[in-house]
């Protein structure tokens, strides 16, 4: 599996993602935002960070980078694309995912572990989890409050595009378990074709017991499993 990690000026989780991809035995390559062409890659990942300092609005400038035309192309052809944190924000800004990520309801940056419930296990990215499995994964963002209008939210829910939800330890999506005010405790969503995933939490930071959790590993192994199934 060959994975492209697209980096923008200000990306700061690029290296973490690189190591996570390597950990599941895949090839990772950094693609600088001014480079063109994503042919030959099996998946494209957009890392977290503060592309262009989050100036103007998180992801608003990065989505105009030359490479984003190729990311949109890649996604249109059905290629798997994952945006984490700032990557999720960029995907929303680029129109690859619906809705927007606005300022946390607390108006403060939120950096801590959260609990996530896996809502869908029939995706390219979650097949190695159990339905309703509760994961422990860190978040670190100031603008992670998922916002969309009611009809869009109903459509997301109705079509099963919500992949991760913030929950408490018992797996319930309570207000207290919602770290940023996201509508309906949404932490991660997938597009209609099922090949573009965006999520605010950082699975690449939950890959080792030494660092507190291995619950993020499933996303990377699921992707590797899906792609090898396609290849064979």
């Amino acid at each position: 599996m060959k994975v492209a990690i697209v980096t923008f000026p200000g990306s700061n989780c690029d290296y973490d993602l690189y190591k996570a991809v390597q950990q599941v035995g895949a090839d990772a390559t950094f693609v600088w935002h001014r480079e063109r062409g994503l042919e030959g890659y099996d998946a494209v990942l957009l890392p977290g960070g503060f592309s262009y300092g989050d100036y103007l609005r998180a992801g608003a400038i990065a989505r105009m980078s030359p490479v984003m035309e190729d990311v949109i192309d890649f996604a249109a052809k059905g290629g798997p694309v994952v945006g984490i944190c700032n990557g999720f924000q960029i995907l929303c800004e680029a129109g690859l995912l619906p809705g927007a990520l606005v300022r946390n309801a607390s108006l403060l940056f939120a950096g801590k572990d959260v609990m996530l419930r896996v809502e869908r296990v029939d995706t390219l990215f979650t097949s190695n989890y159990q339905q309703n499995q509760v994961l422990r994964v860190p978040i670190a963002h100031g603008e992670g409050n998922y916002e969309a209008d009611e009809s869009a939210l109903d459509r997301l829910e109705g079509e099963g595009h919500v992949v991760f939800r913030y929950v408490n330890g018992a797996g319930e999506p309570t207000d207290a378990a919602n770290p940023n005010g996201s509508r309906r405790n949404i932490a991660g969503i997938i597009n209609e074709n099922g090949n573009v995933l965006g999520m605010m939490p950082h699975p690449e930071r939950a890959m080792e017991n030494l660092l507190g959790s291995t619950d993020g590993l499933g996303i990377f192994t699921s992707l590797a499993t899906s792609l090898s199934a396609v290849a064979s």
Partner: protein
Amino acid sequence: MITGDGTASATHVAPRQGDPDITPELVAEHGLSEDEYERIKGLMGRAPTFTELGVFSAMWSEHCGYKNSKRLLRLLPTKAPWVIQGPGENAGVIDVGDGYALAFKIESHNHPSAVEPYQGAATGVGGILRDIFTMGARPVAVLDSLRFGDLDSGRVRYLFGGVVRGVGDYGNCVGVPNIGGEVVFDRGYEGNPIVNAMCLGLMKREDLITASASGVGNPVMAVGARTGRDGIHGATFASEELNEDSDESSRPRVQVGDPFTEKLLLEASLELIASGAITGIQDMGAAGITSSAAEMAGRAGNGVEIDMADVPVREEQMTPYEILLSESQERMLVVAENGREDEVVRILEKWELEAKVIGSVTDDSRFRVLENGVTVADIPALPLTDGCPTYERDGIEDEHIQALRDTGLRNYWLPRGNLTRPFLRVLGSPNVASKQWVYHQYDTTVRTATSVRPGGDAGVIRIRGTDRAVAATTDCNGRFVYLQPRTGAMIAVAEAARNLVCVGALPVAITNNLNFGNPLKPHIYYQLRESVLGMKAACEAFETPVTGGNVSLFNETDGRAIYPTPVVGMVGVIEDTSKIVQQAFTTEGDDIVLLGENTNELGGSEYLYVTARLVAGTPPAVDLEKERALQQAMMAMTHGRHLRSARDCSDGGLACTLAECSLGDGETPLGIDVRLDDDMPPVPNLFSESQGRIVVSCSPVETPEVLRIAEEHGVPAAKIGSVRNAESPFRIAMSEGRIEAALDTMADAYFGALARIMDAPSTSGA
């Protein structure tokens, strides 16, 4: 020019049109005394120009020249076999094994933060990051050591909230995890907060680069952001007392940070260093181009000639004086290999930044500044950096302090019986309470290396590709230093070392940040000297040399000094990450063992501050040999994997330490049953902040071995109780007193305290 016998011969420099005449008032405004001005004239062989006066003012400020502290700093131990770079560079560097070196340093941004908390703190983080990556190391962790007045003041809440946001936003954006530090609230810091930021950077040993302008003829380049009018005379500002007018008048002297540019500059600098196209690099920090150019030339024994017309500026009509003294952020001075300038420019362009040649390294040992080819300053370089007069002053203790020490504390021992209520008050005081409200605003996990996060005694960063990790902590109890400076400084070092051994790290070196009042006052100079002597004794006893740091004097508001606060930033090495020790109790049925002894020493305690608003009494005694033995016993216990948890006993005494072990991070609290049989009244038994104590837990099977190792090292140790399950209460029994609290009541007091104060609607804004 300085001749062989040290006398000066004059070089003529014509006054620049439009510059003011040099008057005694102008000299005084530049923070220079009459004697210092005479000395400058002697060195120059003539009167300085306005531009030259500005240069001397910055370089001979306390901030850059250490004129009141240098003689004392020389007393500190700086050497050990593992020290690669001691004081005098951008940062100290130590060998941490397996081919890796650790660069680390602490720095203050107190004055700017008092005036503009958000930018003051943010640029403090920015500056310390640059000090680390200019050594060739990638910043891997930040710690922040913060002190404010009491939170019942709206102004203090504004400062606290702004500083935390500033520290967070800058580090979060650059992508460096925050792994710990301390936050203290005490009326002793009202009006003059302390904002110290520490950074750790890792590199392969061979990637070390220093800030020296070597190679005559090599081009000198300005790199990164453009120069503006912000922060002019920040170094001189940092060396003055604050007053009620400081807010408005000093705001232009505070710099504005841009963490996005910093991130680009970080990547570009590391790429530059790896390319080999440069021979030296230094942050344009305090005193901007002036100090970076003069210091780089001074270290190499060379001269430097730079033309202000070539410096990229972002404002029109800037004078050489302004350009030289601007403290605009995110700028570097680089000495390139002759002929490789284009390579430097190309690397910077990739990161969407500028690099421009502004001069060259010369062989005449002069610091020479031109404006369109016309000389506007011509100063012998070495006296600029090393010729700053240094003072040794008379220090005498304030009589008032002796009286405070002699305050009788017997009345405060009187409460007996059920002490649950005062216990919950101390546990919920902002100083003891959980700092989650603070560190949940920080990214603590970026770079996927944080093995111990904030909230415990020390943070830990693993070194990828090895079994090793580095640990770091910051410490200082300003009340103890205030009451007895020498003891207080020893305690700061001893507590830092205990923090490190509690996570399983061997303490190896420190960086220090000496935050004091005005040293021209004898009782402040006394505090400074005594503190340095205390630090020296402890660092020698523990073999933890000082590899650098920062001095911040004149921390006074309207004549009132802060508590003397010599902050210790200590680093340690963990050889095997599988031996990292937890901070909280983990398992029902485990034994709780106290290493060290309980003594009746309530002086300077949080209990007195919370229950009586009192800062008085004699601080706890510290025995450096016993501390050393305790550290070694702990290392033996962690090496043998005998412990399930370990936590240093400090603020709030034994009772609060047990509570922290019981509550952990709040997710899986466990009850305890503890029995104390010490021969003293319950209040000092529970709340004394006696030194040399660590609370550990272990499986009952391991207890005999834990006690044996303690005895072998001469450390008193006793089983004091057991860990219970999550439904059991927190219970401490003594012959004349007791605490019994439900875990959720304690959790509410401990975790809710800061949020209740800071998130209340009425507390937003100044």
